[in-house]
């Protein structure tokens, strides 16, 4: 019996390891959940894209459920996503705020004029410093903020119709109910 165990044990260990590695193959390391979820949005103050003299800060994100979308004109995936955001904006369920990330102001303004502007207001983060404070590591990323200015959910990558239907809208409605 003991002799058999000596042979079986390494095989079991090997199988366990293979199991871990197999699972690891299908995990996406970029989908690390943000430690900021459940925390208030970090304080920031940025110029508005359309009006550099006006500022956009965290107080704007309090009072109602909102989305904050990190985007840039250099971000290829943001092109497709923008159409989805325009559709969502038309439904008028939630204000979408933009964080224009490490972008060129003129290109950003041109892009919005040409393709349409889904955003209620846009903060212009030319250095990316505010994005670091928000734990952003690429564009596009989308944060769901509740009425108290708490980050409740974050979606990394371009938003699709499916993401809106499955991930965003149910959460938005749930937060609304929670708030009333």
């Amino acid at each position, binding site marked *: 019996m003991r002799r058999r165990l000596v042979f079986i*044990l390494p095989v079991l260990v090997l199988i366990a390891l293979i199991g871990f590695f197999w699972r690891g193959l299908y995990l996406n*390391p970029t989908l*690390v959940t943000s430690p900021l979820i459940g925390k208030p949005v970090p304080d920031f103050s940025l110029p508005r894209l359309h009006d550099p003299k006006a500022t956009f800060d965290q107080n704007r994100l309090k009072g109602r459920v909102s989305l904050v979308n990190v985007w840039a004109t250099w971000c290829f995936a943001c092109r497709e996503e923008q159409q989805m955001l325009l559709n969502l904006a038309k439904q008028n369920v939630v204000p979408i705020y933009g964080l224009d990330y*490490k972008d060129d102001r003129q290109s950003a303004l041109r892009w919005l004029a040409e393709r349409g502007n889904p955003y209620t207001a846009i903060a212009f983060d030319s250095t*990316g*410093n505010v994005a*670091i404070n*928000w734990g952003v590591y690429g564009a596009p990323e989308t944060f769901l903020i509740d009425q108290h200015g708490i980050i409740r959910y974050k979606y990394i990558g371009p938003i699709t119709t499916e993401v809106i239907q499955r991930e965003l809208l149910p959460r938005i409605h749930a937060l609304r109910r929670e708030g009333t």
Partner: protein
Amino acid sequence: MKPWIPVLGCVLLLVSRFAFAIDSEPPFTNPVLEHRYEHLLQEIRCLQCMDENIANSDAPLAADFRRQIHAMVGEGESDAQIKRYMVQRYGDFVLYKPPLQANTWLLWGGPFLLLLLAFTAVALVIRRRSRLADQEQSSR
């Protein structure tokens, strides 16, 4: 060939590693700060490129991280404060070396566990062999 040429070559090769530096932040005049800054760059992961630390990555995000850390070192923040700042925003994954805590003990202890297992196996085998040898001797 003059004998000093290969020597010069070696020296140049050694020095040239500085030419590969991609960091655009100005060096600190205080060598202690500079050392701390460079050490931190080794320890923070570039999340855009995953398997590189920010000292070796030319991704735009790595450059932003370097700028942030350079500023924080300059403002007198400690290494622990800077790491905590990054972890609070990006999670433990941003540290190149995972911290020793409840959910990582298997990661850190695993190799030692395997080693222990291997030693036990070896000990068992040796004991059995010596027992077999004894039996052979006594049966002779």
